[in-house]
């Protein structure tokens, strides 16, 4: 995280100009991703799920953390991507990369259209509209059983090899590497985006929308743009889930999934890019472990964790780490 340092000998302009430079700590998640592949081969299927949820949470961070758009309907785009990838694989081709592209574009278009409609509003109205959209799309998928499989889900998806080379193997190795590479590319893009003038202006909109209007920002256009981008990336995550599990069910479009992704992001820390990584990982691993012990009761512990974070660590887990680090720095 960039923190301007007034006591530094480096000039103010220089500090701002350098802020996007890569910090070594930013490579930590990638060491963990690579380490998991070699050290924990038995966990690769779970690992892929975690990577996909990180991607989904990262897409949410762009609108929620940076632009300050609170949504409980982000699964709508995840689901559109997931179904598009599934339907495409069944009816067009099982070639995975083109499937990803088609699903991403489809989710982006739905994001653009719904963004144009709902981003005229804000606050509670906007929140309700995001909810309404996820219900509308889920109900549509439910009723359109002839193409979506309705409540039974979409069966019979079979994926071809990636680049005609890499088969999706039963140990989940290909799926893991595939998801990791997609996530890496999205991370590069998201990192560029949040450090770009466009990304800075989103922060401006979140911090003070009145001021942004007064400096001549076309606020709604910016918001719709990031909403569509975020929707596209959520769709990409959904498509990855379909391709790596070769199944799609209505749960990809559920309100629960929308809520869970918000929880993951808040848990990790919003508006910091890496909150998505840590939040999704902690949530998915905790869910996996706790659900083994008690398949029903685990939500209680997730709830507990959330209460603690929201009450005592508004910046999420990353915020806690930040505080601890600055405490250590002050002591020394």
């Amino acid at each position, binding site marked *: 995280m960039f923190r*301007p340092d007034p006591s530094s000998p480096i000039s103010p302009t220089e500090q701002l100009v350098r*802020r996007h430079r890569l910090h070594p700590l930013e490579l930590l998640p990638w060491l963990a991703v690579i380490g998991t592949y070699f050290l924990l081969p038995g966990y690769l299927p779970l690992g892929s799920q975690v990577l996909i949820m990180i991607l989904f949470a990262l897409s949410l961070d762009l609108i929620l953390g940076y632009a300050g758009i609170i949504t409980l309907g982000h699964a709508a785009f995840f689901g559109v991507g997931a179904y598009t990838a599934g339907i495409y694989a069944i009816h067009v081709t099982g070639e995975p990369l083109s499937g990803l592209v088609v699903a991403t574009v489809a989710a982006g278009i739905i994001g653009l259209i719904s963004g144009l409609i709902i981003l005229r509003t804000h606050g509670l109205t906007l929140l309700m509209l995001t909810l309404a959209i996820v219900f509308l799309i889920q109900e549509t998928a439910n009723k359109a059983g002839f193409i979506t499989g309705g409540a039974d889900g979409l069966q019979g998806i079979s994926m071809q090899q990636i680049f005609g080379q890499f088969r999706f193997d039963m140990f989940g190795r290909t799926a893991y590497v595939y998801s990791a590479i997609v996530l890496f590319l999205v991370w590069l893009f998201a990192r560029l985006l949040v450090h770009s*003038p466009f990304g800075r202006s989103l922060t401006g909109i979140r911090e003070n929308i*009145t001021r942004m209007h007064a400096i001549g920002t076309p606020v709604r256009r910016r918001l719709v743009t990031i909403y569509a981008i975020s929707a596209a990336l959520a769709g990409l995550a959904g498509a990855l889930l379909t391709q790596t599990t070769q199944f799609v069910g209505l749960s990809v479009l559920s309100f629960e999934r929308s809520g869970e992704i918000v929880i993951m992001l808040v848990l990790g820390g919003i508006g910091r890019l890496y909150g998505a990584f840590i939040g999704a990982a902690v949530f998915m691993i905790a869910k996996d472990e706790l659900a083994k012990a008690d398949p029903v009761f685990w939500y209680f512990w997730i709830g507990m964790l959330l209460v603690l974070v929201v009450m005592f660590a508004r910046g999420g887990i990353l915020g806690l780490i930040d505080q601890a680090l600055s405490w250590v720095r002050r002591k020394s």
Partner: protein
Amino acid sequence: MTPALQTVGLKKSFGALPVANDINFSLVPGARYALIGPNGAGKTTFINLITGRLAPSAGQILLGGEDITRMPQAGRVKRGLGRTFQINTLFKGLSVLENVVMAVSEHHGKAADMFRYAGSHRGLVEEAYSLLERLRLGADALLPVKELPYGKQRLVEIAIALGLKPSVLLLDEPAAGVPSTETEIILSVIEQLPGDIAVLIIEHDMELVFRFAKKITVLVQGAVLVEGTPAEIAADARVREVYLGERDHG
């Protein structure tokens, strides 16, 4: 000469309360004008109408001769309309420098750029910084705005507006809320504004108004009561009546 800014028959009411009642006003290029009037007279509302935060119920607004009555806020800013707020409207969590960079990027049409790092637009950052130095805020550039004393935050308001290189600048009580010991620095900044900017200042401090303005408009209950030079306004019986007991500026 085409006025830099003009309003024709501008009207607005909140429910039954008329807050702009047929306001005809104009600002010549490079003007140094003031708008005064008692609390609740509709001064801030007038600025909000001009900048497009509020839509008038009737009338016209012309910027450099162009009708901007129905134009969104952003378009008006692009055409040279800048303002400051009576109550600080800043990015409190961001550094002073970033506050100004935001405006400078927007002014140069670079703020929508998503495929380059903000830092690679070095010129924008340098332009913002030199503006801060001009306002003697250079040493505070990296401080979060919320850590600045209120008087300096008022200067950041002005710095942001100047970052937009406006041809018309509307200052809504730039010294409001600032302890009297710090008003001098704000006034000196205002006095040193580039001569080609048309400036309209709203202010309650009559000393400041009389020192700065070449022409004064008095607004009462949403209507222009009288307009004139400082000497004319000071001598006007109606103005004295409105201000009687409130302020005494001789």
